């Protein structure tokens, strides 16, 4: 497989959120605004790229039986790095993402890529795969965040598009997350069928 398709599959064909339905907790939990979604997506991308790289480098050193715990340690290390870096440099984002940052550790996408890709491929492909998957995830979160923010409070990335009084508050709250994602997936399935 060439590197371009390694990179691009994460955006559409194997998009983690829209087609594989992985990593749903952060997808629904942090997307009350577009910038939160983007921040979460980029944090996950960093963890994904770094853990893919390290795991593909040490894959021959890990005995097969303990590979899952070993992967989890690597992932948890990078999550801790992200957590501390975000607390220091972007405290506002850290505050609004809250509990979901340590929970990147149990995001099925990260462990899934480690197990199904990085443990079988060379470091360069693994980095590209992690980057593609991570940015695809960030894209999905940003789209969902924008839709919810626009419908809920009439803004996009904090910039007012129409007066907030006309917004449907429910889209910023919990039920709106499920409903918006449901319609987005239906829409994407439709586009895929015609494409």
């Amino acid at each position, binding site marked *: 497989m060439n590197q371009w398709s390694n990179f691009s599959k994460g955006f559409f064909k194997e998009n983690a959120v829209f087609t594989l339905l992985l990593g749903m907790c952060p997808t629904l939990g942090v997307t009350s605004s577009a910038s939160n979604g983007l921040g979460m997506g980029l944090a996950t991308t960093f963890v994904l790229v770094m853990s893919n790289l390290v795991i593909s480098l040490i894959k021959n050193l890990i005995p097969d039986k303990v590979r899952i715990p070993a992967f989890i340690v690597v992932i948890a290390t990078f999550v801790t790095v992200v957590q501390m870096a975000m607390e220091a440099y972007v405290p506002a984002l850290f505050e609004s993402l809250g509990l979901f940052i340590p929970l990147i550790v*149990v995001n099925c996408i990260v462990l899934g890529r480690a197990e199904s890709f990085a443990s079988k491929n060379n470091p360069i492909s693994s980095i590209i795969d992690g980057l593609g998957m991570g940015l695809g995830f960030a894209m999905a979160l940003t789209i969902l965040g924008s839709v919810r923010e626009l419908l809920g409070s009439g803004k996009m990335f904090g910039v007012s598009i129409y007066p907030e009084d006309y917004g449907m508050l429910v889209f910023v709250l919990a039920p709106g997350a499920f409903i918006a994602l449901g319609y987005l997936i239906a829409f994407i399935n439709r586009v895929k069928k015609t494409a």
Partner: protein
Amino acid sequence: MEFVLLMISAIFVNNIVLSQFLGICPFLGVSKKISTGVGMTGAVTFVMVIATVVTYILQKYVLDKFGVGYLQTISFILVIAALVQLVEIILKKVSPPLYQALGVFLPLITTNCAILGVAIMTIQKDYDLVHAVVFSASTALGFGLALITFAGIREQLDLMDVPKGMKGTPIALIVAGLLAMAFMGFSGIV
């Protein structure tokens, strides 16, 4: 009274799935039938309470004591992963019928973010041990309530005439959204 309020808050008002968005994967994944939903709830309750107690002790007597709080994420997830394995082994030996009922769900629980989420929340909210146990048990019950209700609706949904494009995941998500809306009605009780 305080404990009753804590329980109502954890089960209904701040429902772990429908208002905190934790444990969505099993919520969407194993909710096709009521019976599997019940099994999953049992396994989650069991592991959640044990994991919360163990991580609580770890935090208070190891991490805080030696001032290595930054190891929280990494140590908690390892403890939970080991614990799930341990529970599986013990259950297999001590109570085969219970293992039969919960066995298939146990490996899935390591990556259930609700478990790690509740463990971290307990520390953040600064509960003592008794509160932690009540909180984790009622959170697990809240998870079960949402899961089983959702499974019941999905069983009915199979028989419905859903528009073609909405079949499967999209309609399930919209139903979950309506369920979350219903749960919002509980806010303000506590």
